[in-house]
């Protein structure tokens, strides 16, 4: 086995056995099972709650009966009961918790229903449902006055037919679009989470090796570029393991819950173009490599593990900005600044993919984005390897980005006459 594989396996193996990995994976799997059964959990807490509402009918029963029928047709959780008490008595019952609220029904000057609803809590959901039911009653009453038949009324109430058909360069069916935006959403979150998690893991790993000075031994056995990529691939493999576990858990959890499964099927995953899934994988991998290389580079510049958070902060900002722009872009994918941002390599994996998924932009645009990313990764890797080699021998107290220059010059054959800080001895 050559040294590269040895390091890769070592990185993967030690991380896989680490407590932090096991704990996060367990939490992840638990969260997935929880999410998959969210409807059951909600109905468990929600199911038994029936609202008791007293009604003071001041319209001589004209409204109460139709309202009760109208409400019963859509809602079984609200129980209306006609009350003979006066308002003061009802108020008291509400404050004592015997009633959820009370409704005062009356007729206005045009002989149309009006109502006042009073309750302890600011439960607007119940109020809205009552309002909708009353609206129906009003409609029926007006229809009666105008002598409209019920099918004429239904005709009046039926929604207008309005269809949105994108006349884009590459026409995507409605199902495809729905599926694409779901996939974009999933990928955005996946890139965001994994960059934050795994890139930080790499940076920390490098910083630990450096601060414990084991790096001096490693670097005299294995070249820095091999070390860097062994680490990036090792952690990448670890991430893949975690993602596969998550997907397996998701599939398993969905098997047990047919209700959510049918909801997911609604997205028509099968109708999604194979190219969209392909690009999702390509952008995910490129995004990982870009940020992982950057993280390894940054990790090699700090002397103490405590400084790592400060050092990776700019990287975290890049991820957050990319995430925010793409979240905004999901509503307005053709905005000019979204287009521009999609060519900036640190944002490309999220934003270019989002544009592809939602707009169906021509292939060449996507390929240009991919090319820019590959070039950036190569540049970062070449620079990274040099900075890594210089950086790991630098033990200054400062952890600023100035160190990049110093580290870079340290590996030069003949440095300039300028004086450098953090000279290693």
């Amino acid at each position, binding site marked *: 086995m050559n040294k590269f594989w*040895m390091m890769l396996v070592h990185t993967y193996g030690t991380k896989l056995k680490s407590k932090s990995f096991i704990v996060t994976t367990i939490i992840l799997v638990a969260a997935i099972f929880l999410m998959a059964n969210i409807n059951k959990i909600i109905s468990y807490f929600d199911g038994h709650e029936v609202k008791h509402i007293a009604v003071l009918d001041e319209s001589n029963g004209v409204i109460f009966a139709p309202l009760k029928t109208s409400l019963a047709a859509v809602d079984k959780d609200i129980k209306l009961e006609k009350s003979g008490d006066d308002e003061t008595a009802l108020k008291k019952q509400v404050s004592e918790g015997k009633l959820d609220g009370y409704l005062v029904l009356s007729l206005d000057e045009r002989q149309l229903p009006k109502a006042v609803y009073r309750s302890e809590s600011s439960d607007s959901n119940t109020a809205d449902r009552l309002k909708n039911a009353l609206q129906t009653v009003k409609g029926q009453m007006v229809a009666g006055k105008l002598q409209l038949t019920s099918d004429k009324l239904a005709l009046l109430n039926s929604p207008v037919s309005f269809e949105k058909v994108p006349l884009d360069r590459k026409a995507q069916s409605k199902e495809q679009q729905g599926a694409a935006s779901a996939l974009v959403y999933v990928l955005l979150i996946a890139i965001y989470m994994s960059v934050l998690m795994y890139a930080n893991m790499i940076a920390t790993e490098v910083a630990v090796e450096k601060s414990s*000075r*084991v790096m*001096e*031994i*490693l670097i005299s056995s294995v070249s820095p570029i091999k070390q860097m990529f062994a680490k990036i691939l090792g952690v990448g493999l670890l991430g893949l393991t975690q993602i596969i576990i998550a997907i397996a858990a998701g599939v398993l959890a969905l098997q047990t819950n047919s209700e959510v499964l049918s909801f997911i099927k609604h997205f028509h995953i099968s109708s999604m173009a194979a190219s969209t899934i392909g690009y999702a994988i390509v952008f995910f991998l490129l995004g990982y490599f870009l940020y992982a290389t950057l993280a390894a580079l940054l990790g090699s510049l700090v002397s103490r593990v405590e400084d790592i958070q400060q050092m990776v902060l700019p990287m975290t900002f890049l991820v957050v900005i990319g995430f925010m722009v793409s979240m905004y872009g999901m509503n307005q994918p053709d905005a000019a600044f979204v287009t521009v941002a999609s060519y900036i390599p640190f944002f490309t994996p999220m934003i270019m993919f989002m544009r592809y998924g939602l707009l169906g932009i021509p292939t060449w645009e996507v390929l240009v984005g991919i090319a820019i990313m590959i070039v950036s990764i190569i540049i970062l890797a070449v620079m990274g390897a040099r900075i890594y080699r210089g950086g790991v021998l630098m033990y200054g107290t400062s952890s600023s980005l100035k160190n990049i220059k110093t580290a870079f010059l340290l590996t*030069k054959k003949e440095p300039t006459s*300028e004086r450098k800080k953090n*000279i*290693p001895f």
Partner: protein
Amino acid sequence: MSLKLENVTKRFGSLTAVNQLSLEIPSNEIFGFLGANGAGKTTTFRMILGLLDLSNGSILWDGRPINYETSPYIGYLPEERGLYPKLKVKDQVVYLARLRGMDKQNAEKELKKWLDRFQVPQYEMKKVEELSKGNQQKIQFITAVLHKPKLLILDEPFSGLDPVNVELLKEAVLDLKNSGTTIVFSSHRMEHVEELCEHVCIMQKGSPVLSGSLREIKRSFGKKNISIAADFSLDYLKEFPGVLKWKKTSEGALLQVETEEAGQPILESLIGKGFVRKFSIDEPSLNDIFIEKVGLSYE
């Protein structure tokens, strides 16, 4: 298989860390590097190992440059401990040995041998951070020598060890030398260098101030030490011709004289003054030479 440094120079910006260092370290020998802090010892080691590029000059091992191909033949003990704090001793020593080209079974077998030798077999499955500093240093030493290197570089190997463990390590170093390893080591402790090395190099601010075989250095130094134990006052020797330094000791005095010949008149002057328990003319210690060569020009 000798190690040859020719006009080795390392500059960091305007600072010259190592200047025009030329050395030939004979094979199968222990070579000592001496120097105050910041003299350029560690920088020199890092250049030998290929961790730093040279600004000028060349370093050849057995006529070839040192690179990743030669790494299986080289062992390195860094000045500060370089081990994974959270890994078990066995896991990391075997891993680091494999990176130096050793196979797993062999590495495990050798590790057991070394742990037994250092009387710490119980630490095989312990995490490094759980060990004391001295025991960590033993593990560090094992890491440097497990793959049986031909060239072993030890940067301050005895720091932080108690006298018993220093002896254990010294013995191990001598055994490695006898089995054919070329060893380069640095130390602040003159007595360790004096005891182990045949050749030394004293560095100051990046330049070698003295280099060669220990015996020749001592002989060419010329000055001798005279120690006297007597019941009467030896203060008058302060002004005696040929005496360079005078120091009162608990039993008498310690003198430094210009030449061996200066001893005779001193001995004669003592006669008749009282009871003399001891009079001896000794070789100067390396410590004396070091202080003379480096200490006087301390800033």
